[in-house]
């Protein structure tokens, strides 16, 4: 009875946005013109319906401690020993994820109604957005890897479509292509991981895989990190996660992805899709735990990306690019936590990050909306009094991002730092702490430059009511969302180490961001942020950081240009020259043979006579 209720709710959660997207698509295809109000009602209503179903699910499962629920709706394909189904798996982790996706998704849909109101492609926007939510829900609810991959590629596609949403600009399309192709590289590695897992374990069911992996490759702590098959599987899956989450070495698509409309950046490139990689590793935590090497790789990737992106964010001028780099950096924190085995801390940070980063992006969207699509923060300034509401939103967002005490971001980041200490990973702890310093610095640099100081460009529009509602809810979530979801620890079965909460260390970690803000304020007052740099060395450093450590240039020189050069050098297909060569030989021989057949009677005669003489001499003397 309860199973059926749950399965129907889950089906509704996924199908409502999908249905709405399909309806809107069919309407567009068959030239049924819909009013914007109707489109908005349908699209937002569908996500709202999903969100309500998720709330019902939460209520239903609130008192169930360690629950896991799986249900198979239909068979997808079955060939010989290979089979895949349409099935869902719900546990504490996926419940948190669908809550974030549907909840934040709903708020962003609501916000978009205002933000996109004047866009002529209103309907197309909501088709993509609905489709995205559906695909994301499939991703997090899937009980087997093939269905997860369906959602995985689905969100990638929607991300591509939405980055290139404003199709008139070529640059948007290039950014979209870059995003899709770079994630595709990770995805292909992940697909190979799927093949390998199926070959070794004979199943694609996620829970089965992990159970069998634990039996097949028991963790041998004495052996240390080794490059065995479980490590290869884990690393292949990690490649997919790295691509989707914008981690090193596939991180450089994310800043460019900001070409899309701002709600998209909030939903896809901050709150949900880019954290899919974190979800994937958390989902496969049993598998990853079996391979110490893979865990170290995860942590190292997280740590390096964290610093890389945070330093890049220090020097950006575009408000959205600052936030994009900060997203990469925050996901780096999550990877670091995953690598340290602190899965619930990672997912907790994923959740709080979804709240405060969605808030920051939506607020940035409102800012851009009010400032005639101005993205450069140095053209703004002193907006504190002009746009007080947005200023408040930004303040709470930045505070949470900087992990100021009592904000949601504080609790989750604090938890990560503490877990790192618990596991005696002091190097990573130092990296994370310095990351926290830089984070606080750049987030308040953004805040001070935009809202304090001398007045720059003046706003000409006010955010609409829809936008304000969504923002307000997110502000509340940002402030009070710092409660770790209860279901998580049961999923990850983490042993709670009795950590002695050293007060000095806690105070120290609190002091770090605060001191960063103080330094930032000091520099801001001296007006050092927007001065032009004189020294060559500093300029070089600035450019290096500004380009995100020069990865784009590196990849262009290493892969893109050689690829284009190689393919274009063979434009005419060298194999064809073999056949044209064959053609030419026969034509040439035709030409020579044709000379003999010239219509000259005497020439024919002469050859006849000569041949006869030759033949006779041969006959009479040759033998």
């Amino acid at each position: 009875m309860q199973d059926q209720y749950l399965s129907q709710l889950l089906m509704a959660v996924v199908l409502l946005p999908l249905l709405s997207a399909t309806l809107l698509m069919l309407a567009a295809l068959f030239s049924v013109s819909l009013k914007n109000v109707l489109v908005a009602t349908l699209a937002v209503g569908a996500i709202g319906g999903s969100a309500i179903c998720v709330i019902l699910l939460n209520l239903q499962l609130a008192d169930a401690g360690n629950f896991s629920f799986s249900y198979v709706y239909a068979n997808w394909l079955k060939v010989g020993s290979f089979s895949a189904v349409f099935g869902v798996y719900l546990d504490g982790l996926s419940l948190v994820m669908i809550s974030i996706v549907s909840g934040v998704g709903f708020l962003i849909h609501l916000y978009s109604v205002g933000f996109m109101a004047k866009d002529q492609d209103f309907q197309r926007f909501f088709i993509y957005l609905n489709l995205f939510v559906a695909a994301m829900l499939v991703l997090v609810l899937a009980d087997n890897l093939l269905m997860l991959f369906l959602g995985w590629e689905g969100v990638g596609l929607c991300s591509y479509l939405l980055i290139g949403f404003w199709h008139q600009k070529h640059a948007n399309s290039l950014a979209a292509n870059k995003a899709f192709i770079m994630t595709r590289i990770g995805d292909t590695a992940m697909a190979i991981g799927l093949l390998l897992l199926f070959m070794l374990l004979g199943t694609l069911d996620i829970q089965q895989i992990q159970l069998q992996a634990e039996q097949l490759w028991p963790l041998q702590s004495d052996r240390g990190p080794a490059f065995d098959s479980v490590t290869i599987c884990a690393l292949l899956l990690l490649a997919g996660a790295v691509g989707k989450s914008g981690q090193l070495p596939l991180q450089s698509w994310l800043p460019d992805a900001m070409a899309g409309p701002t709600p998209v950046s909030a939903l896809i490139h901050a709150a949900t899709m880019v954290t899919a990689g974190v979800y994937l590793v958390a989902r496969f935590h049993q598998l990853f735990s079996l391979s110490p090497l893979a865990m170290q790789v995860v942590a190292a990737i997280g740590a390096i990306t964290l610093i890389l992106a945070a330093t890049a964010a220090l020097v950006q001028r575009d408000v959205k690019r600052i936030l994009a780099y900060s997203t990469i950096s925050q996901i780096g924190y999550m990877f670091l936590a995953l690598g340290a085995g602190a899965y619930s801390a990672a997912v907790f940070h994923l959740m709080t990050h979804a709240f405060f980063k969605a808030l920051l992006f939506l607020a940035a969207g409102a800012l851009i909306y009010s400032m005639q699509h101005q993205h450069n923060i140095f053209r703004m300034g002193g907006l504190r009094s002009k746009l007080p509401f947005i200023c408040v939103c930004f303040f709470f967002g930045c505070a949470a991002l900087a992990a100021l005490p009592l904000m949601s971001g504080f609790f989750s980041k604090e938890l990560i730092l503490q877990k790192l200490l618990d596991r005696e990973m002091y190097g990573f702890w130092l990296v994370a702490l310095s990351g926290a310093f830089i984070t606080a610095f750049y987030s308040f640099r953004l805040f001070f430059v935009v809202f304090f100081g001398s007045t720059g460009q003046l706003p000409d529009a006010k955010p609409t009511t829809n936008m304000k509602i969504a923002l307000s809810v997110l502000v509340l979530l940002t402030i009070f969302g710092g409660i770790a979801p209860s279901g998580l620890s049961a999923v990850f079965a983490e042993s709670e180490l009795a950590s002695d909460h050293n007060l000095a260390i806690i105070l120290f970690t609190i002091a770090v961001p605060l001191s960063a803000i103080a330094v930032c304020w000091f520099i801001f007052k001296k007006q050092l942020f927007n001065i032009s740099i004189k020294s060559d060395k500093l300029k070089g450093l600035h450019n290096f950081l500004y380009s995100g450590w020069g990865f784009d240039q590196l990849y262009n020189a290493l892969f893109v240009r050689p690829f284009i050069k190689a393919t274009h050098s063979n434009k005419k297909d060298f194999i064809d020259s073999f056949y044209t060569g064959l053609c030419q030989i026969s034509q040439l021989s035709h030409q020579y043979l044709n000379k003999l057949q010239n219509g000259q009677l005497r020439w024919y005669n002469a050859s006849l006579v000569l041949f006869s003489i030759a033949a006779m001499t041969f006959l009479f003397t040759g033998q």
Partner: protein
Amino acid sequence: MIPLEHILIFSISLFVIGVFGILVRRNLLFILISIEIMLNAVAVLFVAAGNYHNNADGQIMYLLILTLAASEVAVGLGLVIQMYRRTLSLDVDQLASMNEQ
């Protein structure tokens, strides 16, 4: 009795004259005449060989060649006249049109 060798030499010389005629002359009429000479060279050989073997086949063959030559001349001359009427020339080199594209 004329020795066979003499007739052979005569016949071969006639044949070679005919061949050279075909090779050297450009006028279609003379080519036709050269063909006749060659035919007759063969015919003479047939008669001589028939005589040598005491066999009538050679003479029968000669009659066959005679009719053949007659019909050939009839058709050939007719064609030559037609050709001359059309092109006002009997030069085979000029008449060669097979290779014109």
